[in-house]
C-alpha cells in the first residue's frame, strides 16, 4: 500500500489530504492566520492523525499553492493549475473544464481526458474577479463570508455593479447600503459581476460541456448558481471544494516521483 499526501497552502487556508492507492483517507483544512510554515505543519499533522498514520509512513508528499515552499518536510512542489486539474479529474473524470475561484485568482482550466492542462485562462491581476472581493464585500456588509451564498439566493432585485474593480465595487456597495438596498440584492449583484467575468474567461478558453467548479468560491451556493446560470451549465461541485488542489498535489507527486521515494 502506497500512502501519499498532498498539501495546498493557499493565501488564506491550508489544506491537506492523505490518500492510499485509490481513496482519500483523510483531509484537513485550517486558516493560515499569517503563518504559512506553522499552518502547513499543523494541517499535515492533523491530517496524518485523522488517517492514523505517521509522517514516516508517507511515500511521497506533493505541495502546491502560494505557501508551498514553507513546508519543512521533504516534498515536491507542483504548480497549482496542474494540481486543480488532476484533483478535479480524480473526482469528476468526465469534466473537461474547471472553474476555480480562489482568494488570489480565478481560473478557467481546460482539461484533457487524463486531467492534464489543455488550456488555462487566469485572472490574477484583478481582485474583482477573485474570491478576495467576496471577503471585501462581506466585511463591508458586516457578515461572515459563509453567509453570502444563502443570503444571495433570497434576492429578488439584484443590484447591477457599474464597475469591474473591487475598490470601486466596495465604494459602490457602501453607497447601496446607504440608499437602503437590501443586503441580498447587493450580494446577488456582486455574484453576477463575478459570473460575467468568469463567463468571459470560459468563452476565451472555449466553453466545454461538462464543467466543474472548485476553490473557496464554490462553497458559496449563490455564486455556484449564478455562474451556472450565466454560462448555461449545471456545474459539478466537489463535496469539499477546498481540497481539490491538495488531491491533485498528492496524485501528481506520485506521478512525478515515478516510484515511491
Amino acid at each position: 500500500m502506497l500512502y501519499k499526501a498532498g498539501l495546498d497552502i493557499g493565501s488564506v487556508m491550508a489544506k491537506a489530504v492523505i490518500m492510499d492507492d485509490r481513496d482519500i483517507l483523510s483531509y484537513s483544512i485550517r486558516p493560515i492566520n499569517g503563518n504559512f510554515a506553522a499552518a502547513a505543519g499543523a494541517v499535515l499533522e492533523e491530517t496524518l492523525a485523522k488517517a492514523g498514520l505517521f509522517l514516516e509512513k508517507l511515500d511521497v508528499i506533493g505541495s502546491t499553492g502560494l505557501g508551498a515552499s514553507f513546508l519543512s518536510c521533504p516534498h515536491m512542489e507542483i504548480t497549482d493549475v496542474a494540481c486543480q486539474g488532476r484533483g478535479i479529474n480524480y473526482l469528476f473524470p468526465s469534466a473537461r473544464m474547471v472553474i476555480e475561484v480562489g482568494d488570489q485568482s480565478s481560473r478557467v482550466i481546460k482539461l484533457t481526458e487524463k486531467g492534464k492542462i489543455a488550456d488555462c485562462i487566469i485572472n490574477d491581476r484583478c481582485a474583482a474577479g477573485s474570491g478576495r472581493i467576496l471577503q471585501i464585500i462581506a466585511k463591508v456588509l458586516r457578515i461572515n463570508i459563509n453567509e453570502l451564498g444563502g443570503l444571495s439566493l433570497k434576492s429578488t432585485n439584484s443590484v447591477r455593479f457599474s464597475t469591474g474593480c473591487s475598490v470601486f465595487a466596495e465604494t459602490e456597495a457602501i453607497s447601496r447600503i446607504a440608499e437602503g438596498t437590501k443586503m441580498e440584492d447587493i450580494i446577488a449583484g456582486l455574484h453576477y459581476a463575478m459570473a460575467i467575468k468568469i463567463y468571459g474567461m470560459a468563452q476565451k478558453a472555449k466553453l466545454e460541456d461538462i464543467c466543474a467548479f472548485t476553490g473557496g468560491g464554490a462553497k458559496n451556493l449563490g455564486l455556484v448558481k449564478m455562474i451556472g446560470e450565466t454560462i448555461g451549465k449545471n456545474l459539478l461541485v466537489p463535496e469539499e471544494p477546498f481540497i481539490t488542489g491538495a488531491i491533485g498535489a498528492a496524485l501528481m507527486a506520485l506521478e512525478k516521483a515515478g516510484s515511491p521515494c
Partner: protein
Amino acid sequence: MEEKKKKKSSAKTLQTAREAGYFGKKMLAGTRQAYEEGKPVAWSMVDWWMGSTITKAMGIELCYPENYGAFCASVRKAEPNLDYAESDGVPNTICGYARNCIGYTRKLKENNFIIPEDSPSGGMPKPLFLLACGAVCDARYKWFQSLGRYMEVPVWTLEFPQTGVNEYFMGDNKKDNIKFMVQELREFIAFLENLLGKKMDWDNLSGKLDTFFKTHELAHKVDLLRKSVPSPAVCTDFWSIMIPHLYMPEDPEALDFYQRVYDEVKYKVDNKIGAIPNEKYRMLFGELPPWHTLGIFDEFAEKYGVAFAFESWNYHVPSPLPDDERYGINDPLELIARYSYHKFNEHAQVAREQCMEPTLFTAPYMKFVKDYKADGLFCHPLISCRPATYTLMHVRNLLMEKFKVPSVVVEGDIVDLRVFNEEEAHSKMEAFIETMDHYREVRKKEGFEW
C-alpha cells in the same frame, strides 16, 4: 519593492550577443560627441530603415528613443523617467517608450539641455530635429509631435502606407505606394537640405545602402539558420544582436559584426550545438519583450527546456528584395522605399492564403510556426501598446485553429517593470508545459509535421 525587483538580465547564449551592447553604447556616444562638436544630431523612431540611412548620409548622428527606453528598462532605471512623465500628467497607458522618453526629455529641458548626470548610458543629447514615422503605431505621432513643441525643434514625419491584404494585390496598388513613399523621401531630403544648408551626398548614400543591404543579408541568413533543431540561438540572443541591424546597418562595423554572428551560428548548426543544453520545447515569442526581465527566459530554459526559437517579427530584417526590385532600380530612394514596403508586406501572400488581416504582426507567425517547428507561443500583451497587443490575440486564435499550437498569455510592458509579475509568468509557464505536451499529441494525430 525596489529591493525585491532586482535586475534580471539575460546571460545570452551567443558570444556575439554578449558583445552586441557595444553598438548601443556606440550610437549614444556618437551622438553625444557630435553634439559636443557642434555637429547635427537627431532623434529617430524605428522607421524600418526608411529615413534613417538618408539622415546619416547627410552627416547627422542618430539615436533612437525606443532603443534608449529598452536600455533604461534593461538596467532597471526606467522607473524614474516613467514617474516623472506621469507626474506631468502623461497617462500610464501611453507607450512605455514614449513615457520613458518624455520623462527623460523633461529632465533634459529642466537641466537647460545639459544631459543629467544620472542618465543611463550617458543619455541622449538635445536633437536638432525629430524624425518620426507613421508606421505601425498611432501613439508615435503624438509622442514626437508633443516633444517637438516641448523642445522647440522641428519634427519630420515620414508617412508609411499600411496596406491591407486585399489592397496589396490590387492592380497598381504597390506601384502607387512606392511612388508615394519615394515622394515622401524626396520631400524629406529637401527638408534636410534646407535645415543643414547643404546638398545630399548621393554617393555617400549609395555607399551606405550597399553596406546596409550586405548587413541585412547576413542577418537574414542568421534567421534562416535558426530553423535548425536544436535551436542555435534564442530570443535573448536576438534581442541583443538586433541593435546593429535595426539601428545602424550601414555601419561597416555592423557588417563585420554580422559576419561573426553568422559564423558563430553556422558553427553551432553544423555541429548541432543547441543554444540551451536540454531543448525540449520550441516556442515563439510575440511581440515586444519585457526588457526589464529578460533573465526570465534563461530561467524558462533551465527549468523546462524551453528554447525560444524565434520572436518579435517587427525587429527582424525581411528577406532580401527580389533581384528585379533590387538590381533593376537605380534611384536609391526607390530602393529604400521598396525595401521598407517589402518589410511590411512580404507575408501578404500568407495572409491571403489564411484569409487574415492585417499582414503585419500576424501573418508572419503563420509562417514562423511551421518554419521554426513551434510547440507554443508566448504572448506578451502590453497595457501600453495596442498594435502589438490586439494582433496577439488574433495570432493566438489562429495558431490554435490552423496549427493546433497553443499560447500562454503573460501581460506586462516593454519598459514598465511595475506592471510585470514574474511569479505569474512562472506559474503560467509551468502549467503551459502540460498544454504543449497535449497539443503535440493532437498535432501528431492530425498529421502535422512537428
